[in-house]
């Protein structure tokens, strides 16, 4: 158990190297990658099981010097905020790999290597507690994702891949400077020059207000691009539409969560003054994202683009909850991150598998296919409802908690956000109706229904959606302690401000 976090990070990388060297054929490397991702998922289970839910701080900590002369550590740890994200990553990577078996036809070996390298980057980002290490994982992730979109994507893949890369990079280069500024400021205050996230966070009271504002703004920009928040979301529809199914699943399921995770881990506790001051501003942006995303989703002709814009809307709920800065809001936000990963991941998989059969994503091309693919229609309906936030399914709990938290903090914005829920019902149901109901388009009379493999990879997501909806405590119990600690931290900071 001692090095379980390192194992989680480096196992996929090792597997990728193994495949690179020892495998020749696409098919065998595909299976090898799948087995590796299953093992990786299995490794994450004891992590979940042995996680002490009453402990608010970091667990399974690993600490070693990496570059001693400038105070860089190899410092890993997991707490209630990150553990669900790690679980989500291992689960979705496994499913995404299984979901690509027939979708990826060219250069299979390279694709699976890229997926495994990407997994290393994602898990590392969630576990790193040293700024330098965090930054490395954060950026390193870009290369495999760039290749996944660019090589295996759709028609405008090059444009989408470059846009994705440049957007994220532009946001994060300034973050690097903010990290260095924190390093020196913290060093000057304490005499201890380190990139240790926890130590730098501890000294938040010593940072001047102006400094906090600048650091917050720079970090926020970097994370907001990743989330993505309005008006920085324009890369997302392109990337989603052009990426292969597995790329979309990972992008929506995990990569977007990194932005909100970063806000929780860095923006709030490290620069509480700025976070509290700018709370209304972020809430406004979130609500704009919720409503704008929903409205734009409504008029989309491409199913994938519709789901992409719905992501903008749903992630708006997450940021709204986080910046409510109370327990309900933040827990709702984290839960919603998890739900969104599961539900949107599933929706992208479902769109991908029908695309493999029909080679079109235009809503207008479909119609009435429920008659020829009943199993598919049923599952699609469940996830459509889940996405809308129907009670008894995951997203309902998340959105409800977010709205509860938001009402306490800024009731006006919360009312507007609640309207967004209605919009989401409009675009999702309308899309569902146009694709699966109405009169059957003759082209799809003989459409094949989901096969066993496809049912298998959707099935775990189906269970989790209902599980979270029926008994969210299983998942929420992981975050209680850490979130309470974070909220207390923010309250202390707020008191100190006055």
């Amino acid at each position, binding site marked *: 158990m001692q090095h379980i976090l390192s194992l989680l990070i480096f196992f996929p990388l090792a597997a990728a190297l193994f495949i690179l060297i020892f495998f020749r054929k696409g098919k065998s490397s595909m299976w090898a990658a799948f087995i590796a991702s299953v093992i990786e998922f299995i490794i994450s289970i004891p992590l979940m099981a042995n996680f002490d839910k009453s402990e608010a701080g970091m667990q399974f900590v690993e600490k070693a010097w990496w570059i001693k002369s400038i105070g860089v550590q190899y410092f890993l740890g997991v707490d209630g905020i990150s553990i669900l994200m790690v679980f989500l990553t291992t689960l979705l990577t496994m499913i995404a790999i299984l979901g690509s078996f027939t979708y990826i036809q060219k250069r299979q070996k390279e694709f699976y290597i890229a997926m495994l390298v990407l997994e290393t980057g994602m898990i590392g980002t969630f576990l790193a507690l040293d700024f330098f290490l965090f930054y490395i994982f954060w950026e390193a992730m870009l290369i495999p994702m760039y290749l996944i979109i*660019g090589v295996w994507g759709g028609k405008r893949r*090059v444009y989408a891949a470059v846009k994705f890369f440049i957007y994220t990079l532009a946001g994060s280069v300034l973050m690097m400077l903010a990290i260095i500024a924190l390093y020196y400021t913290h060093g000057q205050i304490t005499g201890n020059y380190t990139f240790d996230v926890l130590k730098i966070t501890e000294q938040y009271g010593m940072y001047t207000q102006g400094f906090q504002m600048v650091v917050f703004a720079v970090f926020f920009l970097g994370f907001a691009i990743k989330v993505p928040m309005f008006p920085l979301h324009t890369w997302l529809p392109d990337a989603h539409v052009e990426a292969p199914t597995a790329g979309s699943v990972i992008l929506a399921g995990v990569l977007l969560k990194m932005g909100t995770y970063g806000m929780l881990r860095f923006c709030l506790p490290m620069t509480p003054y700025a976070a509290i001051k700018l709370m209304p501003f972020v809430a406004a942006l979130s609500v704009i994202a919720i409503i704008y995303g929903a409205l734009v989703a409504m008029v989309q002709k491409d199913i994938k683009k519709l789901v992409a814009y719905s992501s903008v809307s749903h992630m708006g709920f997450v940021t709204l909850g986080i910046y409510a800065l109370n327990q309900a809001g933040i827990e709702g936000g984290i839960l919603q991150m998890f739900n969104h990963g599961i539900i949107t991941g599933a929706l992208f998989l479902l769109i991908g598998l029908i695309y493999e059969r029909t080679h079109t994503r235009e809503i207008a091309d479909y119609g009435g296919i429920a008659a020829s693919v009943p199993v598919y229609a049923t599952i699609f309906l469940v996830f459509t409802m889940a996405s809308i936030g129907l009670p008894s399914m995951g997203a309902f709990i998340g959105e409800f908690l977010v709205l509860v938290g938001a009402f306490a903090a800024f009731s006006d914005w919360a009312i507007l956000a609640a309207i967004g829920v209605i919009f989401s019902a409009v675009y999702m149901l309308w899309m569902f109706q146009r694709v699966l109901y109405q009169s059957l388009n003759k082209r799809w009379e003989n459409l094949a229904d989901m096969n066993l493999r496809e049912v298998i990879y959707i099935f775990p997501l189906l269970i989790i959606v209902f599980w979270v909806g029926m008994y969210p405590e299983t998942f929420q119990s992981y975050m209680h302690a850490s979130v309470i600690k974070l909220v207390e931290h923010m309250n202390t900071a707020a008191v100190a401000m006055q």
Partner: protein
Amino acid sequence: MQNFMMNLQSIFPEVLMTIFGLIMVVLDVMTSKEKKSMVGYFGIAFLLIVALLTNPQLGGKYLGFNNMLMWDNFSYVFFVIFALAYTLTTLGSVEYLKDKGILKGEFYTLMFFSILGMMFMVSAFDLTIFYVGLETMAIAMYVLAGFNKNEMRSSEAGVKYFIIGAFSSAMLLFGMTYVYGATGSLNYIQIAEVLKSGMIADNMTVKIGLILMLTGFAFKISAVPFHMWAPDVYQGAPTPAAGFMTVAPKAAAFAALIRFVYIALEPASGLWVPLFSILAVLTMTYGNLVALAQTNVKRMLAYSAISHAGYMMIGLVAMNPEGYRAIALYSLIYVFMNIGAFTLLGILKNKGMVEDERLESFSGLAKKNPLYALGMLIFMFSLAGIPPLAGFIGKFQIFMAAMKADMIWLAVIGALNSALACYYYMRVTIYMYFNEPEYEVDATVGRSAFITSFIGAAMVLFVGFFPAVFINFVKHLLV
């Protein structure tokens, strides 16, 4: 007697280098026409011997000949950088030169002697020594640039380099005379003392002299607007020589500049810091913007070399030890990534895997030759400064130095520039990975060129994961 020993120790590495260089000349005569590469390999062995014999103890300083020549850690680290550049270039050049029919021993001898010149430049504590070193290096470089005399472009590069080089050397020399006239000395330490006394703080003579000298330096490090020669020379020169020229002479010029401005001009920092800050911004931005517009990969790399000089200048104006340590680290990393990239480019072109250096001819390289495409991808992303590759470590240290010196605006411009630069490096990968090949080609690449690019790529990855090794290597540097 003690004085003699000190003198000997300070010049010992250069003496060794001279002897070995002469041996190489003899070897060149003795080897048969097909085996000229042996000369180059012997050079590697000689450099290894010198590196092993002359490593100064930690903090060891050998200042000899009336404070004219210094052998210390600083000189040593830069010597290692030159030696690595020579080694990689030599390994990568054999096949290229053979294909072009210009495999001659002189190629290696000249490179070897240019390193001798660079060592004098870095070790100099006196302007005369510095100047002699500079010319030794420069003349070797002119010849290397025009080494492929059957090719118009190469000859043009040689002549262009020579004319501009001579012009900038003259300017440097002219400036030196002014400085000498005003301060009465050519020694760095004494110049600093005179400047510190403040008596000539407003002296126009000194100012003119220094500005002329710094302009000369700016030519050598290809800072904008004194860069016009660089793209043509780098593009025209034989590719391995171009790789060497973007790395070693630049590192040498930076090292000499660091010595000069940190020791001699330390009291006059008000003059040169703003000057070089502006030059740094111009160099980074211009280099990147023009590189964006290039369709020829070699020329793009030439402009990228200019922009990299801009990043290094940030370390220079930071005015703290972190700054020049970062420059040393950057140069060290730059050796691997840039020579690696140039070597790959050279062999790809010679074997017809890319028809010429146009971007389009890189189309589908990942399909034709996945291994080389992967190597190129690693070099490109490393040059762009994307972690976890080595280039990022270098950039990070540069920005750290700037932030420490409170030059936040410069760090911000640098960071934005590196985001901008990313696009043109990425464009190469776009062609390699995302486009279909234009034509099929079947070629095998020899062992030595493969080894060079492999070492380069492996080091870029290794340093990315274990940066402490390189950082510790430069962390005790003091000018």
